[in-house]
């Protein structure tokens, strides 16, 4: 089963792709994000996705809440006061003047190298494209919903209005025409950078090195840039200033397929136990 796991890796899938190109991706540098949500809106507009209703979360400037079947970019807003508290915790003291810092991060599908959603999809609706991205074929998906709990980032979701699963396509249609995905195109600060994954990794390394050298963002780190994590690296990776969970991201994401061999092994033991106990109950009885 470990062979199975290897076979799901993006590199292998792309190696057998008839028209494979260089793997494309996003590098989202959160130090540059100004929280304008242009990426969210550009994505909605280009991909013709409906709004998520008109409710207010009360979570700072974030009224989007989460990524889901019809929201493929989500800007997270975290305000941290200098005393370490959040504004909510600090309501009594009203130390707003003691402004700390804003963390803003535009979240998106990670287009994992080991993509759990793609692995568990029973219909083959989820595929790896020639750009190394993970794509839901809307004309194949039957809305079984298995990909939803499988995703380690809570990205993909089943839509009520058409019954399909939906998530970021990395603007597959634009990529086929050699265009930039709409979110990256709309981003005014180049917080969202699009390009060949290898080049983005080099660029991210240089950026991290610069930030640390200048001493302003000593707590900066690259999230999902490397391949030695549970998803084998991401097609969309991030420069973060705090722990991943502060942004609503898992600290140690994994592709559940990694453990599938062990799961089936224990299921086989349970199946044998079922046969054994049933046979024993029969043999131990005269009728």
């Amino acid at each position, binding site marked *: 089963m470990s062979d199975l796991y290897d076979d799901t890796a993006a590199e292998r899938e792309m190696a057998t792709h008839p028209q494979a190109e260089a793997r494309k991706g996003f590098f989202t540098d959160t130090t540059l994000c100004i929280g304008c949500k242009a990426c969210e809106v550009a994505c909605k507009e280009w991909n013709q996705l409906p709004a998520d209703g008109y409710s207010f979360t009360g979570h700072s400037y974030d009224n989007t809440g989460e990524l889901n079947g019809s929201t493929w970019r989500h800007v997270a807003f975290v305000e941290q006061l200098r005393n370490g508290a959040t504004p909510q915790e600090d309501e009594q003291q009203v130390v707003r003047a003691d402004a700390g810092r804003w963390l803003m991060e535009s979240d998106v599908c990670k287009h994992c190298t080991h993509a*759990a959603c793609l692995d568990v999809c029973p219909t083959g609706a989820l595929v790896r494209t020639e750009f190394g991205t993970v794509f839901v074929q809307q004309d194949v998906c039957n809305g*079984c919903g298995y990909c*939803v709990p499988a995703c380690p980032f809570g990205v993909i979701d089943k839509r009520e209005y*058409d019954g399909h699963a939906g998530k970021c396509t990395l603007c597959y249609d634009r990529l086929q025409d050699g265009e930039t995905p709409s979110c990256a195109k709309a981003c005014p600060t180049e917080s969202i950078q699009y390009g060949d994954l290898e080049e983005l990794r080099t660029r991210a390394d240089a950026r991290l090195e610069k930030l640390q050298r200048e001493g302003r963002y000593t707590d900066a780190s690259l999230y999902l840039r490397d391949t030695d994590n549970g998803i084998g690296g991401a097609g969309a990776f991030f420069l973060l200033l705090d722990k991943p969970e502060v942004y609503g991201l898992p600290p140690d994401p*994994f592709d559940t397929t990694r453990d599938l061999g062990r799961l089936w092994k224990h299921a086989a033991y349970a199946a044998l136990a079922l046969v054994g106990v*049933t046979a024993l109950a029969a043999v131990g009885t005269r*009728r």
Partner: protein
Amino acid sequence: MSTTDGRPVDAAETAPTTASYYGRPIVKPHVWRWYIPLYFWIGGTAGAAAVECVCARMRGAHALATVEKRAALLGVLVAPPLLIADLGVKLRFVNMLRVFKLTSPMSVGSWILTGFGGAIAASTLAELLGWERTSRALEVVAAGFGPPLAVYTAVLVADTATPAWHEAGDTLPFVFAASGMASAGAIGAAFAPPAESRSARQLMIGGAIALLAAGRAMDNQLGELLSEPYRIGKGGSLRRASATCALAGIVIGTLGRKNRTATRFAAACVAAAGMIERFAVTAAGTQSAEDPKYTVESQRARMQARD
């Protein structure tokens, strides 16, 4: 909770307060409606019933074998409508057989259910036509698909990022197998003639005991933190209801074994225990996905154990 090397991790080792993004979930809870846990129970019961059918047949307990076979047939007649009803695009249920995909337990399970259903239906047809040897051969085929049918759903839910499911992967198949066995036994105990139903009653009581034991094993595997969704909230309530039904079934089924009414009441208790356990697992999974602390703390503990 346990680490990758299987070492149980004490909740006290993890950070006391968990950072999160406004307490919002990190992973999404499953979106299945009640049809799916009900199918888990019906499919598991049908699978175990096919095994009991063949065991009874070999002993010459033909009335019991027929009862179990009818239960299995009923199960495969009810299962597809339940599964299709939950799909977002119902007419595309045929896409479940579009590919055979080893990395998808749902794909593998669709083929198991198809093989099982085909064998039971064909066996019943052969029986009606009077082809006894064909019918019995097909019963054996169905009994071959039965155990995988009873346990694959445990692999299916464990093969997700849902903490209370994924980290229970080694023990959950035993919970599901026990639930199937207990329920199949209960059906035989309730409906087969008393002269033949003794083995079914033993299977019912043995299955109910196994269900309680497997549940304990699962709690141990999950550890203090991740077994919490099985102890509190809806998951906890359902879990206690299942255990109560199982205990009642064991006691009444043992003491009242000479009494037909008592046996049937016990059978209803045990079958209910098997069914409610599936709903408990489903609810606990939702709870563990909705609170980010389960995701973050189990992953942090894993990282700590690795370093």
